[in-house]
């Protein structure tokens, strides 16, 4: 009887099964990597006094998106339609004609209370719908930051990843002759605007690093003749020495939560890695090897630290647990590998490789696999990640002592370009998104 039941069920199942529908599925595994064409007309100005702000904001947004390499802002001269009211849907066919795929319409208006109000909408030209609409209020002097925030919002809406335009870069500004080089700590916006010198150049400053949660920098300086790690608060301008150690401390880097600083401490010619709790100012030693251990960098979850060491005979990259246990080598490629920096996204470690008389920037997975070299210079070193883990900045030293520059490159190896700095610059460190 049971068998009969099964047989009937089988019959029913066959009868219920619809005839296989023969829908053709086309496997699209190749595309055409090109920046997205986007139209960003000058923002509408309700009053004659707002014209400049509207033009400036649109200009900065265009420059931001173009610099990312993922967008191609179209020439405003090619626009057919003039946007006069951002609360009316644009005539999309006018924007399709110039092959724009995205359209940004915006308005900048000074309010009676003295604040600047900026609204913008992002339109999907082919879908004929609004993708995003946001409004900001700020002091008029702050218009540049609003422009960067607009760029970040557009970037995030279209790529699905957080932007990095409303960020700052701290770097070492270099000037003067090669033998008496003046090195000053400087900070500027991500696009090179608003450069400010934080130190006066009377003492050497090296390896500035941003706190990932606040506008605070850790760096190494020779203020009192001996190299020491200092903290600098960008908001207050306050500077303090981090601990009082008998010997030199260098190569500082914050933990992802900003509560710890890992750094190297040198004693009797042996460098080891220490970590300091900024709240209690207590230090813990993490490595005990007679080799030189330096350049620590935390994983974004704070559980691991990558660092460089010559304990195996040559400078290579290692990973250990955040308490110093289980150190193991991950770089086994050619040449020497150093200055590892863990991506904020966690998927990659950027590093500097010395091989065949060239120094270049590359990335590898945290287990050491998938090594790829990115930069194409003669001497590129000291990578730093954008807060979204998509872009790297680094120092490029020009051949023949012709100075140093800051360059950026996409993690795919595309879009390698120079970052504008006042004069020679080195050792960039990327800030988190400004709060």
């Amino acid at each position, binding site marked *: 009887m049971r068998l*009969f039941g099964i047989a009937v069920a089988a*019959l029913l199942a066959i009868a219920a099964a619809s*005839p296989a529908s023969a829908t053709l599925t086309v496997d699209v595994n190749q595309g055409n*990597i090109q920046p997205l064409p986007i139209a960003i007309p000058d923002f509408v100005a309700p009053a004659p006094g707002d014209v400049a702000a509207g033009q400036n904001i649109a200009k900065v947004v265009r420059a931001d998106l173009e610099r990312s390499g993922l967008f191609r802002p179209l020439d405003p001269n090619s626009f057919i339609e003039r946007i006069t009211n951002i609360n009316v849907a644009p005539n999309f066919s006018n924007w399709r004609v110039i092959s724009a795929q995205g359209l940004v319409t915006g308005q900048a208006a000074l309010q009676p209370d003295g604040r600047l109000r900026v609204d913008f909408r992002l339109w999907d030209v*082919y879908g004929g719908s609004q993708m995003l609409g946001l409004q900001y209020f700020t002091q008029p002097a702050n218009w540049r930051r609003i422009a960067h925030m607009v760029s970040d919002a557009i970037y995030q809406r279209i*790529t*699905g990843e957080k932007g990095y335009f409303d960020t700052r870069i701290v770097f070492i500004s270099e000037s003067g002759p090669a033998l008496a080089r003046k090195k000053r700590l400087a900070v500027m916006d991500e696009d090179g605007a608003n450069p400010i010198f934080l130190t006066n150049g009377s003492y050497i400053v090296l390896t500035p690093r941003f706190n990932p949660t606040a506008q605070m920098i850790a760096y190494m300086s020779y203020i009192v003749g001996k190299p020491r790690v200092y903290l600098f608060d960008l908001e207050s301008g306050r500077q303090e020495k981090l601990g009082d150690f008998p010997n030199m401390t260098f190569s500082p880097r914050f933990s992802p939560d900003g509560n710890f600083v890992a750094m190297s401490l040198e004693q009797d010619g042996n460098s080891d890695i220490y970590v300091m709790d900024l709240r209690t100012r207590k230090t813990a030693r993490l490595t005990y090897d007679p080799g030189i251990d330096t350049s620590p960098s935390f994983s974004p979850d704070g559980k691991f630290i990558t660092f460089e060491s010559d304990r195996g005979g040559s400078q290579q990259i290692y990973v250990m647990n955040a308490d110093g246990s289980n150190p193991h080598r991950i770089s086994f490629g050619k040449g020497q590998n150093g200055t590892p920096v863990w991506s904020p996204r966690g998927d990659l470690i950027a590093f500097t490789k010395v091989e065949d008389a060239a120094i270049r920037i590359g990335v590898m997975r945290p287990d050491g696999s*998938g090594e790829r070299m990115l930069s194409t210079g003669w001497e590129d070193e000291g990578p730093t990640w954008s807060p979204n883990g998509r872009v790297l900045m680094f120092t490029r030293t020009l051949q023949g002592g012709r100075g140093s520059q800051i360059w950026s490159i996409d993690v795919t190896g595309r879009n390698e370009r120079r970052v504008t700095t006042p004069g020679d610059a080195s050792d960039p460190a990327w800030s988190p998104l400004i709060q």
Partner: protein
Amino acid sequence: MRSSATAERVAPRLGLVVSVLLHAALVAAMFVTFTRRIDLGENALPVVPVDLVTVADQTNIAPVAAPEPPKPSEPQMMEPVPQELQAPQFDIAPEKAKPAPKPQDANAEKLQNLIANLAQHPPANARTGPRAVEGVGAETAMAADLSSVLFSEIRPCWNPPLTSPHPETLVVVYQISLRRDGTVANLQLVSPPYVNRDNPTPLSAAVEAAERAVNTCQPYRLPQDRYGEWRRFNFKFDPRDYTAQ
């Protein structure tokens, strides 16, 4: 004794099962036959002529060949073609030459000539690729052909999402319904089943990139006589080859 008793007990049951299974097979066979018939109804015509047209479409050879319309009035200009479809030699007549073609054969002769020439010296602008013509039957060949036409249409329009550490999570399938003029009538997201566009993620961005590709690529240039085949189909956007490891 015991075994024969078991056999007797089993036999009727076995007969029932066999009978039911055979019935099931019969019903299943009816379905299969029925489906086939419907599918074949529109396209039961010979494949060969259609195939030739498709080659021209796909490889972009047509524009190059166009400036030379066949001129039946000048048959004497033609050189005979060797049997093996080798490259034609215009300066020296081949030794084993066929007799001069009749005027009414000139078109066929020219076409053959052109094909032979193209096979050995494809034009620089030709986008030729391995033709996925599987030898299972006419339908398979046509479907594979149509898929490569659709692929070559969508390819320049799709901007694959880059740099996600997990590209395998960004595969997007869209069902496309096209009008007869090749414009998009409807777009239906098949996989992932749903995305929240107000909360942008790499996946929602991949879905929108796929949507933009489908929209910006229209109208699709496809063979009109086969509208029944491309009226509705799926595009599976797979960025795995592009994304940084």
